[in-house]
């Protein structure tokens, strides 16, 4: 409980600050509206209420965002194209597929790197260099390019997510697979273990904590990759499309709602991985 109170305090402070900023940022437009309607000298509390209830506010108030999320998820059919749950599911499926691809690729590369000197020397610098290519920035282009050869839908977006999420996995797994100490490797040698046994009984379990730490980073950026990849294909749906259409139409409440859904998804995915981490580490005999 000692952790909950400070966090709650900060969250409350942020919400209060948010309401205050909503008044401040929406005020000019509201004043003009009131002037046109011939309203003079509105009481401050009424004025604040007005700024919190605009249709297209500069900064929507928290309860407007929550209301929009409720209207766009629980109050609509799941399959409706206006439903955020529908768009969230499109983004989530691309994220998960890309994350699975990325983790598999990352683990495979890490295994190749620790078992082969030449691939360590030749691959590692280019894996690092590959991340300086702003793939996130060119993701929409990649999606359009793949679309022009008939690859559309889930897979192009998943490929972007894969490109982003394999990197932390490679780095973490190389570190993890190399983490057994010399004394442990020597023990395996005295047992006359073959390389296969050394890998599965020593290196792989030792790498698990590193793998999970990397996967938590990987799944969060894989979601970012999926959202950004969606920016190019407005007919495909997804949270990225909601952000873009909201931006074109000035629908700020819609943008904020999509953002909060994306944030919630990221938090939930990381939390699920955290739970899996605890379970696996328990099974692997790690100290709690």
């Amino acid at each position, binding site marked *: 409980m*000692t*952790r909950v109170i*400070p*966090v*709650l*305090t*900060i*969250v409350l402070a*942020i919400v209060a600050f948010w309401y205050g900023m909503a008044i401040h*940022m929406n005020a000019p437009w509201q004043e003009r509206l009131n002037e046109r309607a011939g309203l003079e000298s509105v009481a401050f509390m009424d004025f604040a209420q007005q700024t919190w209830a605009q249709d297209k506010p*500069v900064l929507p108030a928290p309860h407007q965002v929550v209301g929009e999320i409720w209207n766009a998820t629980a109050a609509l059919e799941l399959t409706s194209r206006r439903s955020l749950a529908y768009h969230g599911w499109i983004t989530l499926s691309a994220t998960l597929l890309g994350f699975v691809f990325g983790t598999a690729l990352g683990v495979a590369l890490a295994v190749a790197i620790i078992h082969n*000197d*030449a691939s*360590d*020397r*030749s*691959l*590692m*610098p*280019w894996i690092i*260099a590959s*991340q*300086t*290519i*702003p793939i*996130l*920035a*060119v993701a*929409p*282009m990649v999606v*359009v*390019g*793949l679309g*022009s*050869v008939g690859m559309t839908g889930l897979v192009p977006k998943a490929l972007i997510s894969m490109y982003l999420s394999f990197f932390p996995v490679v780095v973490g797994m190389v570190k993890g697979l190399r983490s057994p100490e010399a004394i442990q490797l020597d023990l395996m040698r005295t047992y006359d273990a073959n390389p296969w046994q050394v890998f599965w009984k020593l290196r792989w379990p030792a790498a698990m904590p590193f793998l999970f730490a990397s996967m*938590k*980073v990987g799944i*969060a950026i894989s*979601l*970012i990759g999926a*959202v*950004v990849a969606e*920016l*190019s294909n407005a007919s495909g749906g997804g*949270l990225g499309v909601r*952000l*873009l259409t*909201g*931006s074109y139409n*000035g629908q*700020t409440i819609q*943008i*904020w709602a*999509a*953002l909060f859904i*994306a*944030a919630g998804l*990221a*938090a939930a995915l*990381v939390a699920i991985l955290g739970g899996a981490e605890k379970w696996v580490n328990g099974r692997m005999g790690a100290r709690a």
Partner: protein
Amino acid sequence: MAGLSYFQLYLALVAALIGALGFALGVPTLGAAPLVTLFFALAALSLLRFWLPFSLWLDGALAVLSAVALIEALPAGPTPIHHWLALIAGWAFAWLFVERLSAAIRAGRLPETGTGLLIPIIFGLSLLVVWEVVTRGANVPPVLLPPPSAIWARLVAEVPTLWADFVQTFIKSVLPGYAIGCLAGLVVAIAVDRSPFLKAGVMPIGNFMSALPIIGIAPIMVMWFGFDWQSKAAVVVAMTFFPMLVNTVAGLNAASGMERDLMTTYAASYWQTLMKLRLPAAGPFIFNALKINSTLALIGAIVAEFFGTPVVGMGFRISTGVGRLAIDLVWAEIAVAAVAGSVFYACVALIERGVTFWHPSVRGGRA
């Protein structure tokens, strides 16, 4: 067998046999591509290695010859089958060369510096060669993936445009946003560090925020700060703030209790302890955030430009280039962004080496 491992022997065998096969298939068209034919002949001759000791440099020379021959022979009409065999054999020779080179380095027969750098360079160059040969040989539509030579030609032709985009995106948006975001993160971290209550409250939220898709705030920032560089800088500030905050707070705890006790026995004030012990000790963590942020900042600025921008900027050029199917221009822009990002990262890493020279990771020469 001159000390080849089994893996290297198989590689040598595969390379030589594919070379011999290519020679047999290519004989009817001998005159068309003399260099390719020469490569095939030499590749087949490399079977002699099973009786003679071959230097690893011969494998390297064969790989280089295959690359030169392939690119030189490319424009000659539809690609015959032996061309692809030459590509595979050339790749196998390059791999064999790299394998033997790294084995020689590990055995101490070659110096680590210099020759060690050769291996990643060979990997990158062979990637470019394969890219060039496959895109042009298989007639990959340039809309999908233009060959590197076309990208280079476009890069040279469009220098003024690319420079204007670079100034707009990197100088005007990324650098101010990066400076403000990192500085704000540092200051807030020091402030948070003074109060245990604030620290307990802010840190979980900071960790949470740094895992969220902050890039999604780009449309909001464009609405608030307009289309020009200010909105991009604001996105960069938001993206760089949280990694800096989280890392600095972790770094401020890096000084051990014993060192802090020593400062107490010197009767050092809070600020003296902060400036002379805790901030320097946090150096590696702060530089870690600076390095992460250097690539994040560029990405944030480019993506933010998709949501509205004046008619200049890297993100603008990329999105309109895709619309006009000028993919070679887009790739030229990607190349500029990749070089800018790498140089920025390298600058931060160099400063890190100078500032945190005392840290084990730097002293080990592996930073």
